[in-house]
């Protein structure tokens, strides 16, 4: 019987020749990732159930990346990183990216890929809902809680319900005014924040395979905003070139069976799409940028796992070059590698860093930052009733700080265009 990529990966990891949507199975996990927010609780649960001296199931397969609350004076936040550090030492874990060292990375989902922990055909679980980002590499990746993670730490296993797959096909080529963020916001706007609950979301078509790896990560990153269990893209040369440049570890590419069954299929033609935003207070509250153009803003934010990769900053810099921002604009690279590239990548001979500095933006260190509000002293946090346009992933009430703030989600192009005018602006009106 034919299977989708998601079904095949789950079958292979459960020791079965086939699985069907709706089936509950136990699977072997290839990589478990945790960070400073959920790590301490996960470690507590692991010790409670497996004993104070218990060892993790496979130390090569555990990856710990502090990234959320790093650049803050909050003492408990620092204490939580200490808990991670102690655990890593006690367990001799090789894959730890410690704060204050050369190994420090920043946002876990981007760091996982940069450090070669995302590989086709594998199962990656992480204590963060945006773990689904790694579906861009043709693997099954999803977010779990502390209890599930504590269980995996001790056993290397978890139970999963096999999701039916929804398939989203993009035909045509991406026009210069659109980004992956527009595509995923269009989908979420159409199917709603619960439109893919308990389902896999697969992205296919010329429009998807024409995207670079980072843009594919943006697509998969936001499937959770539609309730999706995982996002997935069939690996191609772009995937393999990236993965092989980051790791020597062997992996097995899994592809769809030609007659695999989909729960749902939707085909978009890229030439019919336009830049969109998600209005406050839900990622499915879609409007075209033209519809809300002119909305007054207090702040712009470019960063996070969704919108803080080098591709995102190149897009923003194309618009900001030689211009000044009219509102407070924050540039927060996802990882230290992205931060380095801000100095290396140039447009017409000028580095992105210089472009952002000359435009008057505030540039922060690599971290999750204000995407999820965080401690009160987080750079860029919305502490009052500000209106912000952001390249991040969620705009639920209070997501970026104050409950009285308002967040519009948009692509880096739209955010940059809006930063210059101080009001929501279509990037087509800016180039």
């Amino acid at each position, binding site marked *: 019987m034919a299977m989708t990529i998601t079904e095949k990966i789950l079958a292979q990891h459960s020791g079965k020749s086939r699985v069907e949507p709706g089936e509950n199975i136990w699977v072997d996990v290839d990589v478990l990732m945790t960070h400073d927010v959920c790590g301490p609780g996960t470690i*507590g649960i692991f010790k409670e159930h497996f004993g104070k001296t218990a060892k993790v199931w496979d130390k090569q397969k555990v990856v710990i990346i502090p990234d959320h609350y790093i650049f803050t004076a909050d003492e*408990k936040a620092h*204490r*939580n990183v200490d*808990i991670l550090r102690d655990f890593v030492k006690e367990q001799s874990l090789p894959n730890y990216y410690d704060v204050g060292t050369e190994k420090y990375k920043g946002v876990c989902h981007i760091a996982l890929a940069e450090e070669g922990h995302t590989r086709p055909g594998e199962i990656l679980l992480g204590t963060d809902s945006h773990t689904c980002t790694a579906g861009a590499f043709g693997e099954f990746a999803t977010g779990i809680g502390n*209890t599930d993670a504590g*269980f995996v730490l001790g*056993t290397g296993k978890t139970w999963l319900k096999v999701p039916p797959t929804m398939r989203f096909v993009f035909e045509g080529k991406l026009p210069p005014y659109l980004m992956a963020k527009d595509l995923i916001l269009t989908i979420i706007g159409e199917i709603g924040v619960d439109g893919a609950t308990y389902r896999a979301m697969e992205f296919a078509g010329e429009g998807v395979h024409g995207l670079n790896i980072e843009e594919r990560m943006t697509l998969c990153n936001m499937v959770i905003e539609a309730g999706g269990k995982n996002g997935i893209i069939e690996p191609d040369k772009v995937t393999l070139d990236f993965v092989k440049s980051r790791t020597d570890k062997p992996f097995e590419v899994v592809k769809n069976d030609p007659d695999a069954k989909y729960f749902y299929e939707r085909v978009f033609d890229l030439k019919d799409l336009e830049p969109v935003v998600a209005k406050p207070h839900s990622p499915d509250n879609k409007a075209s940028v033209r519809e809300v153009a002119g909305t007054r803003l207090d702040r712009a934010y470019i960063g996070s796992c969704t919108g803080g990769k080098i591709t995102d900053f190149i897009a923003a810099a194309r618009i900001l070059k030689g211009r000044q921002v009219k509102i407070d604009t924050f540039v927060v690279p996802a990882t230290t590698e992205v931060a380095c590239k801000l100095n290396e990548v140039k447009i017409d001979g000028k580095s992105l860093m210089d472009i952002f500095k000359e435009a008057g933006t505030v540039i922060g260190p690599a971290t999750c930052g204000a995407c999820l509000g*965080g401690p009160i002293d987080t750079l860029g946090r919305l502490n009052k009733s500000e209106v912000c346009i952001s390249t991040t992933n969620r705009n639920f009430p209070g*997501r970026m700080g104050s409950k009285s703030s308002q967040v519009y989600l948009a692509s880096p192009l739209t955010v940059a265009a809006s930063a210059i005018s101080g009001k929501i602006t279509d990037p087509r009106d800016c180039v």
Partner: protein
Amino acid sequence: MIKEKISGKAYILGDDIDTDQIIPAQYLTYNPANAEERKMFGKYALIGVPEGKQGLPGGRTPFVTDGAMQSEFKVVIGGKNFGCGSSREHAPLAIREAGVEIVIAEFYARIFFRNCVNGGYLIPYESKDRLSEIIKTGEEVEVDIKHNLLRNHTTGKVYELKPLGDILPIIEAGDVFKYAKKSGIIG
């Protein structure tokens, strides 16, 4: 063994109650593995729900009153897509620490649902009716787990809940660890 019945005052919420409303990110620095810090999640449970939506319809009934460590409400009833957003297990834990053992919604976001069950925090019932528009905050209700029913003692009406299905064995065992031991998956 799970209780046969859970009763107390109901607290009503709307659709798409996300984990940032259940426990905002600024409180996530407390470590749930620390007994004293764990209690703080009860104090701040549902503090992110905006005014106008707190306990609907007037929307100004806080779930936990200022200064209290637990809620006077015992059954939380939401609408669609309850618990969407982040994977933070602090969310079901916060509701549990506030003194609640049962939530009822039309349906749940996947990770929140798993966390409720695998961590043994809350019994996540699904309702057949849109109870968030039928029952009012403060009404005395009783959840009959044995028969999958919700009785509204204030109005005398009874509503069917969807059977717990696949998750019942884990709920009966207590959490995923106890379930895995019972079924021989771990030693």
